[in-house]
């Protein structure tokens, strides 16, 4: 997987997992891949994956049972809130770019609506 080497990789892995939780790819209560497996898939240092898991646990997204594995925490509501948060961040970033290019709020809304309709499912 391609990572941006300018930023800490463990943060990017955390974002990846949060994305998967928000999209429902990883369900609440589901077990995350083992540190070694995920490191192999992403081709990174297992310590980096370990760090990501530890931070995710600290932030309350997952829970690690010694000897068993790491599981997604939370409930339906928490996942929805995460989904909203991620969506808002994405939109804010996009809007900021368009504003800097000189588009007005109405133009931005029209662009977004058009793009959303044409987007592949």
């Amino acid at each position, binding site marked *: 997987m391609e*990572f*941006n*080497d*300018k*930023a*800490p*990789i*463990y943060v990017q892995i955390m974002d990846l997992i949060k994305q998967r939780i928000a999209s429902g790819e990883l369900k609440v209560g589901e077990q995350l891949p083992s540190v*070694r497996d995920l*490191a*192999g898939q992403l*081709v*990174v*240092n*297992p*310590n*980096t994956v370990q*760090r990501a898991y530890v931070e995710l646990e600290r932030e309350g997204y997952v829970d690690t049972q010694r000897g068993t594995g790491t599981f997604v925490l939370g409930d339906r509501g928490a996942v929805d809130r995460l989904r909203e948060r991620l969506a808002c961040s994405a939109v804010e970033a996009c809007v900021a770019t368009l504003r800097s290019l000189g588009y007005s709020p109405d133009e931005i809304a029209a662009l977004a609506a058009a793009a959303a309709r044409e987007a592949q499912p």
Partner: protein
Amino acid sequence: MSELVEVVHLTKRYLTNAALADISFQLPEGHIMGLLGPNGSGKTTLMKILGGLLYPTSGSVFIDGVQPGIQTKARVSFLPDVNQLNRWMSVGEAGDFFHDFYADFEPQRFEGLLKVMGLRPEQKISSLSKGMIEKARLSLVFARKARLYILDEPFGGLDPLARRQILDALVADFRSDASMLVSTQMVGEVERFFDDVVFLGSGSIVLSGDAEDLRAQRNASIEEIYREVYGHVETRQI
């Protein structure tokens, strides 16, 4: 985690220059450390001292609390930047040689690695291309269940596919009770594997730290930091 490697005020001096000048750092267990720097900065000298091939002028080096010698050689797997194998040997015989002298050599693991690298035991070292010899040597080094792996430019002479194979083997092999010290010029490709980084310049440590922390602090990749650190040296030479 205990410190697997401790380097304390290490100096290596020759008649005309100091290859290493007062170097100190630690490498914890289960970590992969990148040793970076231009040619002549002292990387190979440092690795040879850790491998017991060179003796310090002053200062000490401890591997598992023991100074380099026969005990450490049995626990350290060293990959030099040149081919150290006898050309008359076959790949299989090199494996037998390692098996004979290193108690931690695992023959099944060796066979497995050979298969991944596309090598056969009957092949004579003298008949192999540069890249294939490199793969054979890496297989020998990783077939040992060592405490410390020292790899001096392990990617030289390898095509991108082979590099990927090695990196996959690195990840698959990763053990939390062993550590790795890797020097490489291919910083961009390998930096995602480093837990810690040490930048050497003219025998001294110019910069060191946790790789992720360095990225966060400087908003830059390790490769970019490399260019920052050594950039001024290059311009001066012009």
